């Protein structure tokens, strides 16, 4: 579904390698967790997949569509939720949602169905008539999540999605991710919450200093670590 082939990205005249020859092959129906310490290259990698940063080398394809060769085609099946939901705060929530809907060209019926479902689920139905400027961080996050789910994406990419969400919404989001996988869609997300990764992910990759240092199912990761306990132990051991 999502294939990263030898992608690298460096900043500052190539002196700092943010992402160094990363390859990943993520299958349909998989929830893939992307872990790593601060500044390891998680967000950079994600930005290259969604079209916000051009890789120096390597290719990225979604459903066999090269995201940098045919960006429109690729973007129409991807949805992205950034770590910091900076959205047009002078719009009302509903205006923003409709704007996103228009950009994906989502037909009326689907739009209404999806909106009713997710607004109810995230408990922001009463707020979408208000200016986004008046929202809390968590509410903005929920608005962006709703907008990202409108187009029924084949690949759902989230950067630190649990930050700022209340327990119920965070539970709901996990449910959504599960359901999407059951429908054969792919979820790719970065997180610092190791318990979430441990419980939710089919496979996990750990990135450090721009390189993938571990990749596999929880079982596989455990079998390689000295202290075969929790993901926290493995993570600490690997990123020392």
């Amino acid at each position, binding site marked *: 579904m999502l294939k990263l082939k030898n992608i690298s990205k460096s900043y500052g005249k190539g002196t700092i390698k943010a992402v160094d020859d990363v390859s990943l092959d993520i299958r349909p129906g998989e929830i893939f967790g992307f872990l790593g310490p601060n500044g390891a290259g998680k967000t950079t990698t994600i930005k290259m997949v*969604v*079209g*916000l*940063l*051009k890789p120096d080398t390597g290719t990225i394809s979604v459903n066999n569509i090269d995201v*940098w060769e045919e*960006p*429109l*085609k690729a*973007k*129409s099946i*991807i949805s*992205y939720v*950034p770590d910091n939901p*900076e*959205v*047009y705060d*002078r*719009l*009302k929530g*509903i*205006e923003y949602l*409709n*704007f*996103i*809907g*228009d*950009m*994906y*060209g*989502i*037909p*009326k*019926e689907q*739009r*209404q169905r999806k*909106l*009713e479902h997710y607004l109810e689920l995230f408990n922001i*139905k*009463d*707020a*979408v*008539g*208000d*200016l986004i*400027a*008046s*929202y*809390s961080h968590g*509410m903005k996050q929920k608005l962006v999540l709703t907008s990202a789910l409108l187009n029924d994406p084949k690949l759902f990419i989230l950067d630190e999605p649990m930050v700022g969400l209340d327990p119920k919404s965070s539970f709901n989001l996990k449910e959504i991710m599960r359901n999407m996988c059951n429908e054969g869609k792919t979820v790719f997300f970065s997180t610092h919450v190791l318990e979430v990764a441990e419980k939710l992910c089919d496979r996990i990759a750990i990135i450090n200093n721009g390189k993938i240092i571990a990749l596999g199912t929880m079982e596989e990761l455990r079998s390689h670590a000295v202290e075969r306990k929790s993901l926290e132990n493995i993570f600490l051991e690997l990123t020392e």
Partner: protein
Amino acid sequence: MDKIISLIKTDFNTTYGLSSIAYSFKSKKNRWQIIVFGLAMLSLIPTYFMIVKGLGSMYDVYSQIGQRSMFLLSGFLASQILIFVFGLLYVMSKYYFSNDMGHLVPLPIKPSYIIGSKFVTLMISEYLTSLPIILPFIIIYGLKGKEGVLYWIYSILLIGFLPVIPLVLASVLIMIFMKYTNIGARKDLIRTISALIFIVGMIYFQLKMQTIARKALLEGEDFLINLISDSNLLVKKLGLIFPPSQWATLSLANYLNFGGFSNLLFFVLIGVISFIIMIILSESLFFDGLIGNIEVSASKGKGKKIDNKDLSRETRPYWALAKKEIIMIFKTPVYLLNAVGGVIMIPIILVMSSVASGDQSLKAALEMMDPNSGLLLLAGAGFIVAIGMINSIGTTTFSREGKSLWIQRTLPIKVSDQIIGRVLSSMLIQTLGTVAFLASIAFVVRLNVFDMVLMAFLGLLGSIPMTQLGMVIDILRPMLEWDNPQKAMKQNLNVLIGMGVGTLFLGAIGFLTIKAINKIDLYLIYILLIGVFVLSTIILFNILEKLIKKQFEILE
């Protein structure tokens, strides 16, 4: 004291981005941009010198009638009134709409400290706007009159204190204004509308004052005798428009005697006292106007309830984009004031100035033009095209996205939709401006309906390439890192560059049109203009398509 100095330093750094300039100069691409911008600024120097040369002859005229000091007054009035008018806008955005307030208010510092430090940064901005105006006046007066050392010392002091009084006035007015308009959910709208009315009112008041002063001057039989006996007569009468300018002028004009010294002292003292009064007032005024802004009344779902129709409103992508642009412009006071306010107010002020001052010159000039020559129609169309750049919508269209640009870049939006949507939003506002313009000139001169329609059509058509030119500039160097929408529009060099490029574009077309008039048939000129506008629209569309695609990929 440490707190104040630290506040000033930080505010200065964030406003002028010293750290980020130093940082960006390290990158090769940015360095080139700065150099290119520097060259663009240099190219404006010849025009500036032409104006300065004109000032030289203005000095000679006043000198001949023995009223040299009037020349200085013109300089002080022009710069101080400009400082005041800009001050109103600067103060509004700097005191009330900058995002750092959210960090500053919770800190244990007095409101007067915040205002004091912001005031100092504003002073610096005001020097940048006022120095190019006041310096030529002072230098010409000093050199041509062979003034002594004391004149130059006085000048330095006066220039140093020049922005204080107008800026204090602007600050106090805005603080009172914000305190008493801090009401209800629609306060942005209330404020914007009252601000527009306020500015128009101020200008009207100024013009009226000028006329009254001028009339008072000419009345009475002894005018000519007085003119000869008192070399500061004009200053004493016309200076009443803004007394501080009068004090500054009188101190320079009489720097050799006590009168000059006392005026200087007066100017400086009043400046200092007014600053202190403002600081004291800020303790009781400032937070009252500000706090409500930060709260933005946390969403409690009190907004309009949405129904099924809202949930399933489907629009074409370019139209949705235009709609989003328009909503953002209308709901952000700084954008509304600059983009829409400017477009609507410029023609109104133009006409008002002629009506209020009882000045028939504009009317006379317009009537002198032979209606059949088409000159009036073409000039009007040219004016509308110029507004297409002055509205700054094209030159800030990507900058205004700011940190939200990721939305546009990760969505599957066709580049052509990007262009059409953004041009469309500019054209909607242009249409408003055109209506205001047509309504305004209808007051002054009679035009038939056909000419009006043709003028509007040509003007709007020409506004399309103008907006596109602005977009080309903005996509090449979008200003995305801002915390205050003010920066995206008022402190965006793209606006200035756009005006330069726009002047060249419009100037070239205007020049050719004037050359062609009376030589070829008027209707052929119209058709040729339509051709030029359509052709440049198509060419610019193609350029934009490539640029946007490329830039959306490489922006970081």
